């Protein structure tokens, strides 16, 4: 084997070693020891947890009927309007939640939407 051929083979092996190392690194970084997020906000919760968060807000609202406070409690879930947040939660929860829970979420969503529509058209 000529010197050049041997050198090429070595480079190829070198890059194969790098590729194998990258695979090992990715496996370790994504599967074995994925990065731990701390100090996150509710907006980053998965949709299931968001739905449960909304359900808790709806339960609290059912007890105190304080729509302003319900809005404040929903605010950390993100930038969408509160009624939109609750609607998304209802849609994701519908296949899994019992009707009673869905009902109080719908009640909250309805009240929020009514208030938002009232704010958008104060003259009506």
């Amino acid at each position, binding site marked *: 084997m000529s010197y050049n051929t041997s050198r090429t083979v070595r480079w190829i092996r070198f890059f194969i*070693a790098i590729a194998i190392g990258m695979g090992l690194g990715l496996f370790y*970084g994504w599967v074995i020891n994925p990065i731990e997020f701390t100090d996150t906000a*509710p907006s*980053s919760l998965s949709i299931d947890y968001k739905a449960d968060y909304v359900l*808790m807000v709806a339960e*609290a609202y059912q007890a105190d009927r304080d729509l302003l406070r319900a809005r404040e409690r929903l605010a950390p879930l993100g930038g969408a309007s509160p009624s939109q947040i609750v609607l998304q939660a209802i849609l994701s929860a519908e296949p899994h939640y019992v009707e009673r829970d869905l009902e109080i979420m719908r009640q909250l969503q309805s009240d929020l939407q009514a208030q938002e529509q009232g704010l958008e058209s104060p003259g009506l």
Partner: protein
Amino acid sequence: MNEESRGSLYLLTGLVIGIALGLIYAWLINPLDYQNTSPRSLASEYKDRQRVLIALAYAADENLERARARLELLEDPDVYTILADQAQRALTDGSPPQEARALGLLSAALRGGAGPVILPTVPTFTPSPSPSPTPEPTLEASPAPPTEAVETPFPASTDAAVETDMPPAATEDAAAVENNPAPTSSSPYILDAREQICDTPLPRPIVEIQVLNAAGEPQPAVEVVITWDGGEEHFYTGLKPELGLGYADFTLQEGETYNLRLVGGAQIITGLTAVQCAELNGEPYWGAWRLTFVQP
């Protein structure tokens, strides 16, 4: 270095470089989806909010198992203490009172298995007499309803400036008391015992409150209102579950005179001042008032 050794080394170098690149990509460039976190990763501020919501939801649906499951998602090391501490903070940081109450109630329910608490409502007519005086009242509940309105006894006390005031409704005569319907679980609490405690020197004088239901069981989440000249404070039983679900205490200031009542109760306990005790050699130390309320 011979050719064979060089071969192994460059492969190892490539492997190390590859692993480093892989980790940089996995941890920094494209970490796992940031948008699907769980409640345990929430910042402490949001965990506090989450606990409040869990407690309020529990207060609304009384589903303890659901509350427990939700709390487990936060992976708190000592959930009872954290809830009780948060309830204490909620009382002082301007949070709505129902949040502190809900947190205390949930903490107590988780710790003691206390069921939903039926809190006494403010009565429209409440005779609320004090129990009949007995030579040596104890901290045990006295479920037998009293038959006449008399001053609350406090035999251990040497403080002359203490007595139990009754609101106007409580001045009804004994006949009215006897005609009162049988007590229910929502009957207001009445003072059963008022004692000065000097058994242990305390760093500050305090008033201890114990609230028991008709069955003698400690009652958490009962709101206590204490007032003094120019001030008022609200607190709840059960926020120090290690001392009992029906327990609450409040630090008294020397020279100040306090009045205390339970929300929903008609009695106002007046003349609470810092209790000063004395060792045998005359050295003074702080003691406590112990007030025990029961449901008749």
